[in-house]
């Protein structure tokens, strides 16, 4: 059976000219439980690893991280984790949770404002800069929020929102609706 992303049927284009919304489907997601070590990011942060190149390590809890990679990399990343940094650590587990969430990417000058309409965290770059992540609620939906980087050409932040598959269409509808409330460009 062909893979089908949770937002395959949702038209994400109608967001006005201040924000762009796109689904990044089928990302590899591995839930890693292990004892804290310096090779994993600190609370509230994530980083794309130099060693594993394609893997992004997101802090979820004091002994829990989400490793995100490109589609189809489950086996490769699991093996690399288990033979590499987890090899010497007992009591660890790596679980494939790729099907649990899909990812929405928000960019553009209105991205921050759009998220702020449904999220109580201070997402201003001085607090929530590149490399920051948080588990919180966006429009009453539990999400993992990432401030990926600032766009090279515009300097504007790029956000990833990881959302459970079953909440994805609700969240997408809310984002599309809320984008109509963004103040006119400035």
């Amino acid at each position, binding site marked *: 059976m062909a893979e089908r992303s949770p937002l395959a049927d949702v038209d994400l284009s109608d967001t006005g000219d201040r924000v762009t919304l796109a689904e990044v489907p089928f990302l590899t997601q591995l839930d890693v439980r292990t004892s804290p070590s310096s090779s994993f990011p600190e609370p*509230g942060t994530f980083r794309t690893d130099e060693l594993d190149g394609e893997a992004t390590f997101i802090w979820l809890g004091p002994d829990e991280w989400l490793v995100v990679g490109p589609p189809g990399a489950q086996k490769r990343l699991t093996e690399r984790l288990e033979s590499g940094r987890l090899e010497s650590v007992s009591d660890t587990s790596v679980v494939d949770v790729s099907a649990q969430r899909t990812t929405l990417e928000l960019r553009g000058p209105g991205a921050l404002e759009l998220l702020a309409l449904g999220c*109580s965290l201070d997402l201003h770059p001085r607090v929530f800069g590149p490399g920051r992540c948080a588990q919180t609620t966006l429009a009453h939906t539990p999400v993992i929020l990432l401030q990926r980087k600032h766009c090279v050409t515009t300097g504007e932040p790029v956000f990833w929102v990881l959302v459970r598959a079953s909440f994805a269409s609700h969240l997408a509808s809310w984002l599309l609706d809320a984008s109509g409330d963004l103040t006119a460009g400035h």
Partner: protein
Amino acid sequence: MMLIPCPWCGPRDESEFHYGGQAGVAYPADPGALSDEQWAHYLFFRDNPKGPFRERWSHSAGCRRWFTLTRDTVTNEVTA
């Protein structure tokens, strides 16, 4: 809306948390030796102070960890 200080995530809205009741209620050392009344006391009876109260909270919409804090039941001020 209360702001509750999660030890891992910092201050977050109350709506991200679940309440876990009084902290430090020890499981009976020998449950089989308890009378029904004593068992009911362990299960259902909790302190209800007017003032500081040690209680459990779970950051269920965040890092999903349990922690203990002291909240003043009159002012909702979190002191520890």
